């Protein structure tokens, strides 16, 4: 399978008054056709900014993003339109992302007509019905003429998904797409997304702060963990959760409470050296995790920015002590 999206050393900075904030710093990531990748991290780690750059809502400050092998910043008009249709975004808040004055039919039919996918009212109705069925809003006739306020959060989010599917995308960025949906129905929404991925060969970049959810959704795919603008670990989903390598991933996993009173009370916690999250305005030198890192090893961590290094087992980690240990193990 070919690569659908490829980020090469992508950096994005923002100017706030006279200060510069590096929201995304030297991120390289390749997503194959039909693959699911989850980006996980705390707020301010740059995961949403990364997603926005991929859909073209934000330009990069440096580095390149390629869609199907072509650099998006250099695409000519016709190709650029192809990219814009091919890469779509599902937003976090289904209460804000649907026009309250339009019916479900209006919302979904608009892009169909605008991009000339259907001609005439009858064809549009037929296609909208198909799409509603695809996102499990059945029977579709119950939903066609409803307004967003008449739908539940989960149903609205399904409408957002149907709207995205109108233009036959090959890649979807879903930014915290289920975090505002009731807990009891999150899984069914994710199951719908998984079904679509399988039926239509969609690739998905799923952005979330919930590692358990990421593991569930990415199951066969990969999870990338971001910290202060950089990807610190990238590995197959289950491997990342079951055998985390980067100290930050390990700390995160040990801090998450679990829905099992025995497990969660007995869980071994890894202590941080410091609770303070560094300001993006004054990032620490070297590895930006070093002031908090439980595996801090001195000078190298303080001074040299660790690069993401790929290992044979399919994982990639940006950490000096981990890399050193891997090299030592190999030499033995």
């Amino acid at each position, binding site marked *: 399978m070919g690569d659908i999206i490829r980020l090469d050393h992508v950096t994005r900075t923002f100017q706030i008054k006279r200060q510069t904030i590096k929201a995304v710093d030297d991120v390289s990531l390749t997503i194959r056709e039909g693959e699911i990748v989850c980006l996980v991290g*705390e*707020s301010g780690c740059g995961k949403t900014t990364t997603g926005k750059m991929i859909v073209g809502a934000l330009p990069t400050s440096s580095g390149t993003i390629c869609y199907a092998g072509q650099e998006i910043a250099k695409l000519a008009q016709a190709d650029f339109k192809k990219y814009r249709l091919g890469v779509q975004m599902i937003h976090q808040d289904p209460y804000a992302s649907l026009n309250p004055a339009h019916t479900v039919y209006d919302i979904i039919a608009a892009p169909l007509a605008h991009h000339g996918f259907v001609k005439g009212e009858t064809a549009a109705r037929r296609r909208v019905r198909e799409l509603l069925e695809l996102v499990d809003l059945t029977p579709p006739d119950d939903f066609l003429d409803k307004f967003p306020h008449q739908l*539940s*959060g*989960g*149903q609205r989010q399904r409408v957002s998904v149907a709207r995205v599917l109108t233009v036959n995308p090959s890649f979807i960025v879903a930014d915290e797409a289920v975090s505002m949906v*009731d*807990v*009891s*129905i*999150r*899984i*069914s*929404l994710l*199951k719908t997304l998984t079904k679509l991925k399988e039926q239509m060969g969609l690739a998905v970049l799923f952005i979330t*702060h*919930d*590692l*358990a*959810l990421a*593991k*569930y959704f990415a*199951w066969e795919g990969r999870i990338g963990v971001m910290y202060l603008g950089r990807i610190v670990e990238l590995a197959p989903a289950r491997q990342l*959760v079951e055998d985390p390598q980067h100290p930050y991933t390990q*700390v*995160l*996993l040990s*801090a*998450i*409470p*679990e*829905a*099992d*009173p*025995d*497990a*969660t*009370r007995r869980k071994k*916690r890894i202590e*941080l050296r410091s*609770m303070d*999250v560094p300001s993006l305005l004054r990032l620490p030198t070297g590895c930006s995790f070093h002031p908090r890192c439980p595996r801090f090893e001195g000078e190298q961590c303080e001074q040299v920015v660790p690069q993401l290094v790929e290992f044979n087992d399919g994982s990639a980690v940006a950490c000096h002590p981990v890399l050193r240990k891997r090299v030592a193990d190999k030499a033995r």
Partner: protein
Amino acid sequence: MQPTLSVKNLSIEYRARRGRVQAIRNVSFDVQRGEALALIGESGSGKTTLGLGVVRLLPSAASIREGSIVYRRSGNGQSEIDVLGLKSDPLRQFRWKECAMVFQSALNALNPVLRISEQFADTARAHGYVRGAALEERSQNLLKLVRLDPERVWKSFPHELSGGMRQRVLIALSLLLEPQLIILDEPTTALDILTQRNIMDVLKELRTKLDFSLIFISHDLSLAAELADRVATVYAGKIVESADVQTIFKAQTHPYTIGLINAVPTLKGAKEDLTSIPGSPPDLIDLPTGCKFHPRCPLTESRCVEQEPELEDVTSGHQVACWNWRTARESLKAFEVK
């Protein structure tokens, strides 16, 4: 020993343009001394309304239709307070001195133009508590208890602190007048994982060092698993199951509790185990007949549609409101296999 808080047959309604929102319907529960009770449920289930009702801070569109709330202070000056009968000054004294509430959004709960020191002084003044050096010493000790550096925080404005620090300031502030009951409304929602962990550790430590009861409102099951002694599941304004934390997570009998626990992905869980509850939460203005969960319940039969089940004892300390609780676990398992 008598419970710190006894809520009996409480019903709360909101007036809305479309009709009356039945946010809390005939809810009864006790909070024992030193106990942590978690109220879990989805958004709109009425759990926050319940919390606000206990401290009588409901918005003006809400009214308490019936029921009673009794608070019992133990130790020095033992007394029993009928919370719904309180008016003006005694009510203000009850809030914070007896029962403090930590709100969901810590940023909005602190006055943005007052330094942290002034927030503490304000609270102390309003309740005729100690002032001057004594107040400063007590406040700073509390700040240390919640793992904040008083030097750094004392003269700061709220906007100079991070979300997690503000939340901890609020927790310290809630403890200032030594209340015996603290209500935490989604204390860690909107906080990052590591900050959330820190707050949870602080709460656990406080509970071992100080003597207070806790009502803990959350939609996050895992927080309840970690912090609570007892858990009550709230659905459509009613407690549908209540038990000790082990029972709720290991031997729950209400189909909604079972469904909720099966719907939350865990780090260890296998993929197949997860299933959503079909449908969506009901409209509180136009509630279904009978059991309010029946439109979403796989085990619904005619009785469920006709008549609403009340809480009954499964064992002592474990109550459930479901006609089919005896067989629910087995039947649902069979249902999944199909």
